[in-house]
């Protein structure tokens, strides 16, 4: 493919649109709550307690937020490692989405950490406990965020015309792209490992030695789904042509990954002898919802014609995203029962508004970046 075909350009247009302003307002609300959280402590803003030290700020902002951020991972994997050039138009928007997903997940950790002022201890080798899964996740996510900045840097450099540096960066970019594929593989599976070590506190419907595999699969699945979803939404809202030929191929991959996930889930339950838990085990209802979402999402993609229909793609991507979200929420919060209790946890309104604010910030920044920086590939008359 010639480089001409993949020229990127800013979308332009007004920045202060209604969606942007709504997002900005939600961010402001979150900012006020965060001011309270940092001046009066965690209890003033959240329902976090000793039984549930991880609430939605970890389960949604970090665990699910970083899965949203896997768009860059899967597209880089496809485009550069498997050398499938046809996915190239999707790289920059995907990397941008990942950058926000991961950057804000990192910020959310600082919100959730009780003693956030010690966060840099993670980077100091003499404080490290090298067998800790948490350390692996922490370091890996921090490194990956930096890698994403480098991966996205060409867009900046192009925009501000720093061509010399861009040319130099292009020569070593492959190192970062390789890292950008390696690191998420490591920490997305480790997110599952973290819940392996909680042992019996996690319902047998989810507790499994296979958790790292399932987390990696959902990361890949949600990465694909978010690319498809974003692409459809961008086409609709920015009135751009659909990238359906590329998306239909992605849809085929989604179908494979989602089917693999469902099959492995049931095989795992049968091998562990916990299949009966589906009927009346703890939180089994949520397992059923999770599976219904997942199976209906993949079923939509089985007829080949559907993979070319933007509505089917959108619905399927939405359902698979919802299934992935619910799977991760189930593992981190819903299926989790603290040992000595009974403990209760449901996020407070303030907690929810902070999470909403984080995602609103993500959307606002995305809108700003695609309008001001060369992220989307240029639309040529033959496409339109």
């Amino acid at each position, binding site marked *: 493919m010639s480089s001409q075909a993949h020229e990127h350009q800013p979308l332009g247009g007004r920045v202060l649109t209604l969606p942007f302003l709504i997002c900005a307002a939600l961010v402001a609300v979150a900012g006020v709550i965060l001011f309270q959280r940092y001046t009066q402590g965690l209890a003033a803003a959240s329902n976090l307690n000793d039984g549930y030290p991880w609430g939605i700020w970890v389960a949604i902002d970090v665990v699910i937020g970083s899965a949203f951020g896997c768009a860059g991972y899967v597209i880089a994997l496809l485009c550069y490692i498997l050398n499938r050039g046809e996915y190239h138009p999707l790289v920059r928007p995907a990397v941008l989405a990942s950058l926000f997903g991961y950057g804000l997940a990192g910020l959310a950790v600082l919100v959730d950490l009780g003693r956030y002022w010690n966060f840099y201890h993670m980077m100091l080798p003499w404080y490290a406990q090298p067998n800790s899964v948490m350390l692996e996740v922490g370091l890996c996510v921090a490194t990956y965020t930096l890698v994403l900045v480098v991966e996205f840097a060409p867009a900046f450099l192009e925009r501000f015309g720093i061509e010399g540096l861009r040319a130099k960066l292009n020569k070593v970019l492959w190192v970062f792209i390789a890292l950008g594929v390696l690191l998420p593989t490591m920490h997305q599976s480790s997110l599952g490992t973290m819940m392996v070590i909680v042992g019996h506190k996690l319902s047998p419907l989810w507790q499994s030695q296979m958790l790292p595999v399932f987390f990696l699969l959902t990361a890949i699945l949600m990465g694909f789904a978010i690319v498809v979803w974003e692409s459809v*939404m961008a086409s609709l809202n920015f009135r751009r042509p659909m990238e359906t030929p590329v998306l239909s191929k992605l849809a085929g991959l989604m179908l494979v990954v989602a089917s693999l996930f469902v099959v492995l889930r049931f095989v795992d339950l049968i091998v562990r002898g916990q299949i009966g838990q589906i009927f009346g085990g703890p939180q089994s209802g949520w397992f059923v919802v999770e599976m219904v979402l997942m199976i209906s999402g993949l079923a939509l993609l089985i007829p080949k014609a559907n993979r070319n229909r933007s509505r089917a793609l959108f619905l399927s991507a939405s359902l698979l995203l919802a299934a992935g979200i619910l799977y991760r929420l189930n593992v981190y919060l819903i299926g989790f029962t603290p040992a000595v209790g009974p403990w209760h946890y449901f996020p407070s309104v303030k907690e929810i508004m902070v999470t909403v604010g984080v995602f609103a910030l993500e959307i606002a920044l995305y809108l700003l970046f695609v309008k001001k920086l060369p992220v989307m590939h240029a639309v040529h008359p033959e496409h339109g």
Partner: protein
Amino acid sequence: MPDGHVDLDAEHIGDLDEYEGALAGLSRREFLTYCTGVAATLGLSPAFGVKIANAAVAAPRPTVIWLSGQACTGCTESLLRTHHPSLETLILDTISLDYNETLMTGSGHQAENWKQQAMKDNWGKYLMVTDGSIPTKDGGVYCKVASKTYKDAVLECAKGAAAVISMGSCSSWGGWPSTGVNPTGAVGLNEIIKDKPVVSVPGCPPNPYNFLSLVLHFVAFGKLPELDDKMRPKFAYGRLIHENCERRPHFDAGRFAMEFGDYGHRQGYCLYKLGCKGPETYANCPSVGFNDVGQGTWPVGTGHPCFGCTEKGVGFTKGIHELASLKSVAPPNSYPAVAVDKGEGMSAGAAAVVAGIAGAAVGAGAVISSRLGKQDAKTESSSTAAE
């Protein structure tokens, strides 16, 4: 040799006043360790161990005359079962135990003469220890030694004693011979000897280390330790068993064994409802333990309720199953649940926000998919038209 010749019968029994002899085969280190242990039992600083050691080997050692009345000899027996190290050797050598019916080798007139000789030689200086109660009914005829009633024997011996110690509950307040119908009119030593303070070490048997600590305190400092209103040393009888009991947390949490062998009993719950008298009995059993075999070696530790052996009016008087009268904390009639709900559940506001977000997502999804549906239809019709 004719009977009654005290000077001939009383043979020299070893060079007890020499340093080596006084240590009785212990190494110097073993001896100092032992004395430091005694200091710890008394609640003194370890530095006092040296002082106690010096006092114990200084010659002449104080004479102890031990008389036994109506008793089971358990007090003396328990004294023999202490092993850190070989207590019986030490008690024979650090103090000069000149008369004890259970332990002495001599018998008959020889033993009696030796007692008289020892009393005469140490008049006004010796320690008098008794175990067993004193019968008073019918002129005290129910217990006689060498044709002398036990009552007369203790009165005689007490006259020349520097201090009087009653060992065990029988001697302290009458013990089991005095309970119920009390056919012999048994009483404790303090009811016979009125002109001298009678320090008591009650228990059935008392912990031998309490007795030993008391004696060594007397030897080391020349005076008795602090005593309570019943003349018991406070270091051993200052607190209720209930206060130091290892099962106390179960009492406070309301977990009781209800009958022998039930779930609570097997789990080591509090024995109060089985009739444990720990809440009204002063003794250090839970902290010191018996027989030097580690923690938990005392009645409650092995699963039996304390029956209050040290307390007059409790031990041998109240039934084992009877509830103790609580001297410190009374258990409430009901307890807060162990599993109290903790943490915040779903608030109405949070539920509304979550429902709002979910509703907005589904609504937006529906709108978007209908718009996409129209777009798809347009694309498909245009592509069909193009064909």
